[in-house]
Every structure is written in C-alpha cells, then in structure tokens.
C-alpha cells in the first residue's frame, strides 16, 4: 500500500490502477499571459459532470485597479503532489498516467490542508459538503482523448490541449516547461507552461516574482502577432 518515494516520505497516494489512461501524446499547455479574462473556461468547466454547476478553474485579476492581467489556473498535476501528501485522509490519488484526481468523496474529511498547501492555489473547499473539489483534467474526457472542457473553449488558447508537435507548430516562439521553483522547493508537473523558446532557463521561479507588480497592458499588444493558426 504505502511505498517510499524519493524524498523518503511515506506516499500511499501513487496508484498505478487506472481505467483508461490519458493518451501519452496529448498534453496540457497553459500560457497565462495569453489569457484575456473572457471567462469561457469558467462556463465550460462548470458544465463538467463530476462537479456539476461549479467551476474548478481559478481565474483572477492580478491587480484589478492597475492592470488587465488575468490568470487562469488549472491543476498542474504535480509529479509529487503536495496536496496528496499533506492529505491526512489519503483522499487524493494520482493515477498511473500522472493525473492527480480530486478528493475521493468517502474519504475527504474537509480538513483544508490541500487547499492551503497546493503551491499553485488550486483546490477549493466545499464546506457544506465536507469535500475538497479540484480540477482533475476532465478525466472523463481526457482519458478518451478529448480536450478538457476549458481547453476546448479557450479562445486565446491560454489553456490548450494537444500534442507537442502541434504546439511547436502553432507557437513558433514558445516552448513548454514544467519545472517550478517555490523557495527551496522544485516542483515538476504534468501540465506544461509556455516560456520563450530561447529562454535561458527551464525553471519558472514563482517565488522570486512574488513581490513584482502586475504586468501592464502593453503585455497584450504583441501577443496576437504570434498567430494562433499559423502554419
């Protein structure tokens, strides 16, 4: 049941049992700076069968008074998910294909640990139901090769789902990265974030930007120069 992971902690949360894996070649790519804050993802997400009527996407204005910058966050499906490891009830399982599922209903005791510990700020707490809810990459869809709801509607493709080849073709100036730095902790994720192709670093250092102000609206000016449908 429990096996030791690389950091020496007991990790009962890795399960290799799964019904249908998400196809290997399909991946999730996010690019927050393409987000135009249109909320289509929120609408689409709330139509999903596993959390009817509630959106699991977190969409914020970074600094509403000053900037148009918005940030859509889906679960990044960490390789070593903090949410699952701090869960006292073993309610969060990671499937063999690397998808970190939402809390198992009979188990979750609504302690809020995962909500407060997730480095990306993803899980939500449904107090009345005594249940944590979070994005599970639309497992019902992704496992049969369909795009998750949000990625299927995002007009700027800030949330995109497809193959690496497709992304390379559509975004000639960008490349995917999946390593994040939070203080002394490095986290690798299944979901990719787009960084400049010639970026000198592969790591997105989140905590070093913690006290930076939001980006100004000029950010968006050059954004659509890079055509969505080029090639």
């Amino acid at each position, binding site marked *: 049941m429990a096996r030791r992971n690389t950091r020496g902690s007991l990790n009962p949360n890795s399960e290799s049992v799964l019904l249908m894996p998400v196809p290997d070649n399909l991946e999730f790519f996010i690019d927050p700076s393409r987000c135009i804050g249109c909320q289509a993802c929120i609408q689409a997400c709330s139509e999903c069968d*596993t959390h009817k009527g509630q959106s699991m996407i977190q969409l914020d204005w970074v600094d509403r008074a000053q900037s148009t910058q918005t*940030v859509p966050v889906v679960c990044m499906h960490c390789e070593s998910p903090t949410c699952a490891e*701090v869960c*006292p009830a073993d309610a969060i399982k990671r499937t063999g294909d690397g998808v970190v599922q939402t809390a198992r209903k009979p188990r979750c005791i*609504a*302690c809020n640990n995962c*909500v*407060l510990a997730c480095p990306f700020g993803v899980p939500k707490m449904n107090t009345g139901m005594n249940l944590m809810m979070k994005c599970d990459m639309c497992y019902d869809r992704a496992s049969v090769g369909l795009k998750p709801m949000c990625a299927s509607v995002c007009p700027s493709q800030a949330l995109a789902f497809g193959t690496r080849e497709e992304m390379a073709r559509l975004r000639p100036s960008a490349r995917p990265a999946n390593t994040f730095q939070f203080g002394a902790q490095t986290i690798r994720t299944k979901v990719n974030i787009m960084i400049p192709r010639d970026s000198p670093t592969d790591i*997105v250092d989140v905590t070093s930007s913690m006290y930076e102000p939001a*980006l100004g609206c000029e950010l968006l000016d050059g954004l659509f120069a890079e055509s969505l449908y080029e090639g």
Partner: protein
Amino acid sequence: MTREVSIATSWGVGLTLALGALIVAGSRNLAHFDAALVAYTFSILFATFGLTYRYAMWLQRPPTAVYWRRGWQVFFRSGWRLRNAGTWFRRLVSEFLANRFIFQRNRLRGITHLLIMWGCLIAVAITFPLVFGWLHFQPVAGDLSLYEAVIFGFPVFRFPHESAVAFFLFHGLVWASFLVIAGVMLAMRRRMREEGAAALQRFAEDFMPLILLFAVSLTGLMLTASYTWMKGYGYTFIAILHAITVIGTFLWLPFGKFFHIFQRPAQMGVGFYKDVGRAEAKACCRGCGHAFTSRMHVEDLMEVERKLGYRYEIPGTEAEHYQWICPSCRRASLAIAQGLLWRGRRGGVPLEADARAISMPVRVNRGMGEGPLGVEDAENFYP
C-alpha cells in the same frame, strides 16, 4: 520491521486479543458461544487486526499525526470543553446519524447512504452480540409464553414471544437487508447512469463493496425464506453461501472502501480544529496582507511539509515560508513569473513598482459557478 510497522502490529495484536478475551468473558467461558458461528468469529477477529493495523499505520503519517494530536488538544482546550461537547453531540446527530453533508451533495445520494448505513448498523448491532455469545434469548422457566434476553450472562428483560417486540427483534435482520438492498440498488443505479461517476469509479474500490453487501443481504433473506415458507429447503447450502459472503465482507473490511467507516470520524476532530482556529489568531498573507486562515493551521502545515521532506522555505524574503502566502497570491505570482520571462518579447512591461503594497488578486467573476463553495472557500480566496 520499521518502527511504524511494529507499533501498528502491537496495536493490532493487542486489540484482537482484547476482543478475544471479551468474547470468552461475555459468553461465560464460551458456555453461550455457538460453535457453528466460529468461522464468523475468526473472520471478525482477523478484521479487527487488519483494521487496527491499518488505522495505526494511518495515524502515523505526518499529516494525520498532526491532526490527531491537535484534534484532541483543541477538544480539551480550557474554555472550549463545554462548547465542544455540545458541538460534538450536535455533529454526531447531524453529520453521522443523519448524513447531512451527503444530502448536501445530492439528495438521492444522501438517501442511498442513509439506507446502506442504517441497514448495516442494525445488522451489526444484532449479529455481533449474538455471534460473540454476548446476547442470547432463553425461554423463561415457568412461563413458556415469555422470552428472556440475556446480555453478558445477565438477564436483562423479558418479552412475550407473540409480541411486536419479538417480531421486530427476531426479524431485525430482515428489515436491515431491505434497507441495504434498497440502498445498493440506488447506488448501482447512480454508478451505471452518471457519467461523472463512470469516469472515476473502479471495480475493487466502488463496485466490490456494493456487490458484497448485496450478496450478504440476499443470502440472508433466502435463509429466512427457506425456513419460513419452504420448510427449510436448501437451508444448509444457503447457510454456507451466506457464511461465505459475510466472511468475505469482513475480510475485505480493512482493505477497501469500507475503511472509510473508521476513518471518517476524524472529521469531528477537524471540525473542532477549525472552530478553534477561527476564533484565534489569523494568518495574514505576507503578499497582500489579507487574513486567509488560522495561524495554527499555517504553522502546523509547515511542520507537516517539513516532515514530508518539502522545502517551501524562502530564505531572505519577508515571506520566510511559502505557506504564509495566500492561495490567490500564489496564482498571481505564477502569472507574473511567467509574464516576466516573456518581457521584451511580447512587449509586456511591469507596472511601475511604487511603494504601494501588492494588492490582493481578485476573482474575475464571483458569480457564474466561480463563486465561493462555502465559508472557508470565501475566507481562503475572497477575503
């Protein structure tokens, strides 16, 4: 054997022996113990070991250990005891006996769970004492129209065997099976029809328990039917079948979904922890400055993360540890970090960094399915 395993094994062995001793004592040195039920007894003893072992292992995981310790501490915190006792009773009734939180998920799910839960509770309350020889019924010498219930060897009450009490007592298992079967049917229906459930369910975890419960109830009813209406036709065969299903269920108890029965009460501790946390010092985000949870929770989580081997410390900053940053600011930081990598390429320039405090990120839309899911969600994300 690691330390965790030896602790868990000793607890398992200890509790199993204690139950064994209680069986011997409660049945007056096995005088009232029905030898035909010995297989049931052993499967229950095995389940006791398995459950205790798993529970003890579970309690030793860092997050569980912290919650376990803190749960008791806050329960007995001075100034809170009376209030906690009241809350305990209230939650026992609303959350556990009435499954209020499951009804909040969906009414039909609530009914389903209530049926299965009460069916099983009634069945366990009747069968365990009988199997262990803790309870038996005997005719009253001198008045053959009366039965006497003997509990732990002491006569407790008498009732006529043509009475409603007798009817309900002796048919208790039949009522329990009806509840369980109805519940299992509803659960199966949901699992077969709901696409959300279909995506996540797994056979061993989700169907197996339902099949076991159904088999136990059905074979139990067949026994009753056999001796009531069919002059005991096929009784021995059905009895063996029933025994196999029941024993199978007990053996499965420590491994699969049934373990939640024992895990779930931890929800109580969590409740007290949150009550106390809410009344005491708040943790303020070291980014935007807003309070987002209790200080106690942040500090405990830092301890848990350290024990798990996570290093979210951020030396040389005023935040010190990433746990002091609220979830909203974490998401904003992610966007800013990525945006800055694109600086000069996509034309983005950071705003003038004046002395103004970093402002709290706000939800794009608080309605439209993105609103807070409850009070805590509101505190965490919508200060």
